[in-house]
């Protein structure tokens, strides 16, 4: 059953060397309350799996600025100068992964698959060192699943079974990351009684969710 915990308690579970998959796209749909609690604790040497490194003062950018991330699998760094500087200084090891491939590799882990075959990256540096497999005459790159210890996600409403709904483009990678955490912690705007969510509206079934954290802020003003 799902437990409701504080952001500080969520952050305290995450130890050095943990692999954390984090939802959000350019900080929209990022679990800001949990991230802030992590920054307060300052645990270092984390591996981050995320679509983009966000901004220095928003989303996972805050973990980067505070030197908590030692390696990352990410598709886009362009909005965060700190991560590019740390990469150039050799402080952080980056594997750049095409965004669609990143999603499928994360989803694979959550879905019990070893990986996926994708044409994305053929003829580019992305295919270097990887196995190429032909299916009915077409080449694909074998992209292995990406494992994570924790998934930290942001949703809109949760019921006490951990069923989740999302809001607009804040959904993005969250339902995918949610599937892939050995432990999944969802930060939500509101926790309602079981039965108050229409099962038709549930995007992430509670089976994927272990802990709920109430969001402390509406940094998303229009909620």
């Amino acid at each position, binding site marked *: 059953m799902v437990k409701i915990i504080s952001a500080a308690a969520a952050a305290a579970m995450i130890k050095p060397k943990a692999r954390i998959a984090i939802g959000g*796209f*350019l900080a*929209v*749909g990022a679990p800001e309350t949990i991230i802030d609690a992590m920054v307060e604790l300052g645990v270092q040497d984390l591996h981050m799996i995320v*679509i*983009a490194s966000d901004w220095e003062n928003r989303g996972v950018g805050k973990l980067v600025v505070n030197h908590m991330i030692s390696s990352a699998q*990410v*598709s*886009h*760094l*362009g*909005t965060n100068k700190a991560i*590019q500087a740390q*990469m150039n200084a050799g402080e952080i090891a*980056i594997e*750049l992964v*095409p*965004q*669609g*491939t990143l*999603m*499928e590799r994360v*989803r694979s882990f959550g879905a019990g698959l070893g990986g996926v075959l*994708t*044409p*994305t*990256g*053929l*003829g*580019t*540096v*992305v295919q270097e060192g990887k196995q190429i497999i032909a299916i009915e005459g077409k080449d694909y790159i074998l992209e292995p699943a990406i494992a994570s210890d924790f998934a930290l996600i942001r949703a809109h409403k949760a019921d006490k079974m951990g069923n989740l709904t*999302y*809001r*607009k*483009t*804040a*959904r*993005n*990678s*969250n*339902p*995918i990351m949610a599937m892939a955490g050995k432990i999944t912690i969802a930060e939500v705007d509101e926790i309602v009684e079981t039965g108050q969510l229409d099962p038709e509206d549930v*995007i992430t079934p509670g089976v994927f969710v272990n802990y709920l954290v109430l969001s402390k802020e509406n*940094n*998303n*003003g*229009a*909620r």
Partner: protein
Amino acid sequence: MAQDKRAMIGARIAKELKDGDFVNLGIGLPTEAVNFIPAGVHVVFQSENGMLGVGPSPETGTEDQDMINAGGGFITALAGASFFDSATSFAIIRGGHIDITVLGALQVDAQGNLANWMIPGKMVPGMGGAMDLVTGAKKVIVAMEHCDKNGNSKVLKECSLPLTAKGKVSVIITDMAVIEVSRQGLVLKEIAEGLTIDEVVKATAAELNIPEVVKYF
């Protein structure tokens, strides 16, 4: 680039869009096209962070923090819009369900190769969704300045930067020309008003095939 040149490229991109197309426009220059969609042409814009049916920017004061496009800009939803997760978004993209994608480029070459995600040792923003878009979209259009800041052609015999995808570009739209990528190489289809074919050829590092009729745009 001057606004009039940006608008000219935007207007020319818009001519490529057909009624009923599902379209993904890259950040920056390609989005200029939204201002020039011809009357009677209805296209559905996708944003790879998880939305179809992207509408115009909201009026100041009505922005919703949970409504952004892939560049982080605020957007609205048109009637018929839908939201979905990132894996579904890239299933749409990679699975061939997007008719046209328009992207910027650092370099593009005569084989239809595209480089737009890194300059080794200088700038590594990452590929984001670009590799999936270029791989999966039915038609890939590059929209860019013809030359870089130093006046060097960005249309090359062969890309020197790390590729985004191999052989996927079909049309190149610049402030100087519209170039088609064919099996026989690059074909100069149109030139900008006020230029001569010679000027475009001189500004282009790749070899251009010149058909009998080259139109102005």
